[in-house]
């Protein structure tokens, strides 16, 4: 009985360490209707890569630093729809960084658009 108890304890300790908690980042899909129905003109954020470094284009501004991206997004009205256009090249981490920055800035409508 003692052996079985220790076996149970070891099992739950091990599985608790392996099963890391995950969170989710929400993004709309362009074509879902919500972003087109918004009253405000969508702001375009384009993500690509320059010399192996993720690059963000917010309107006409080119941004390499995530903190600057976050501060620029925070200047937008929360009701402003944000269209994130993802070009081939950057890693997924750059995409999630952009979506997270948009959510942290309080933007209500964030849509993902696969770019060519």
């Amino acid at each position, binding site marked *: *009985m003692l*052996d*079985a108890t220790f*076996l*149970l304890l070891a*099992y739950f300790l091990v*599985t608790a360490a392996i*099963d*890391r*908690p*995950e*969170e*989710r*980042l*929400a*993004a*709309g*899909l*362009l*074509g*879902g209707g919500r972003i087109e129905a918004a009253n405000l003109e969508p702001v375009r954020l384009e*993500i690509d890569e320059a010399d192996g*470094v*993720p690059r963000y284009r917010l309107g006409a501004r080119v941004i390499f630093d*995530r903190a600057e991206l976050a501060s620029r997004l925070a200047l937008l009205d929360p009701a402003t729809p944000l269209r994130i256009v*993802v*070009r*081939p*090249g*950057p*890693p*997924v*981490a*750059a*995409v*999630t*960084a952009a*979506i*997270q920055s948009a*959510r*942290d800035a309080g933007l209500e409508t964030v849509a*993902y658009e*696969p*770019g060519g």
Partner: protein
Amino acid sequence: MRFAAAGRRERLLPLDMTPMIDIVFQLLIFFLTTTQLVRTAREVLSLPAEAGSEEARSGSGAVTVNLLADGSVLLGDRPMPLEHLSAALAARRIDRPADFDEAALIRADREAPAAALNAVVRSLRGAGAVGLRLAVDPAGVGAGDTP
């Protein structure tokens, strides 16, 4: 003097080990089985280190696509070439349309190419997905992983 212990038989309590061994083996089989099920249900990935968003936590994500660092895709736990993903999702929509009532869940490795992510998103959009949720790892926030 005759001691009573000389003629006394030492009593041994009979301890039957069989049930204990049975239980141990049953436990072993149970844990082996459940460990396999847990492993196949969720692919181990290096998720992007982000905090996540409050509104994305609800729902179970009926359609789950795993995107590995090399760009390969698993629909649930089933390997799926990218060129077949659209057809597989379309078939799933016919079989189980309720799965698409919630936003699809994409579990993408942080180093996976955005081109592969775009292909997955296009396939999901073509199948009628109402939205996206990207899985992130809040435990990695602050470790300097984010670009």
